[in-house]
């Protein structure tokens, strides 16, 4: 697993492309969107959903 943090105000075009309307927002493999900061087990479950 690899991870990039993207500071949205420096990259407004990316924020638009990934439809960032609030932060934090996590996009897994450009497919699954995770809004906010869910509990760890919920976050892991969504990552697994994207990765299978």
């Amino acid at each position, binding site marked *: *697993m690899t991870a*990039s*943090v*993207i*500071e949205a105000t*420096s990259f407004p075009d990316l924020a638009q492309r990934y439809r960032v309307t609030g*932060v934090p927002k*996590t996009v897994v493999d450009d497919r699954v969107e995770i809004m906010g900061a869910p509990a760890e087990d919920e976050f*892991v479950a969504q990552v697994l959903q994207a990765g299978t």
Partner: protein
Amino acid sequence: MYPHDAATDLQRRLAALSSPVKLVFFTQTFGCDTCLPARQAADRIAALSERVTVEEHNLVLDRDEVGEYGVEWAPALAVVGAKDAGMRYYGVPEGYEIESLVEAIEIAGGGGPTLSDDSLDALDTLERNVHLRVFVTPT
């Protein structure tokens, strides 16, 4: 400069790194208003510990390093310890996001926060690499 207390805390945490960490910084010459402040932010963190160094490359000119680190945009920081675990920071690390970068440095340096054993076991079942893009704003 950081407030004295904050600098002392960061120095203590960075002194605990078990292996050196390299911040591989990617800049570009034109059209990057945030590249200079991002480099300055990296330098401020590196100034707190001999275990943290900054290495600069150009996103347009240094194609070998861009390929090696898989960097997509500038400004970018690849946080690299004994091995490259694929942690990248795009933009200017300031405000609360300094904490995100320092945690990444601690992880790269062999420590820092980790996940529960259950989460690690679950993620071990992934059969391919997945990439997280985490959008943040400085606060």
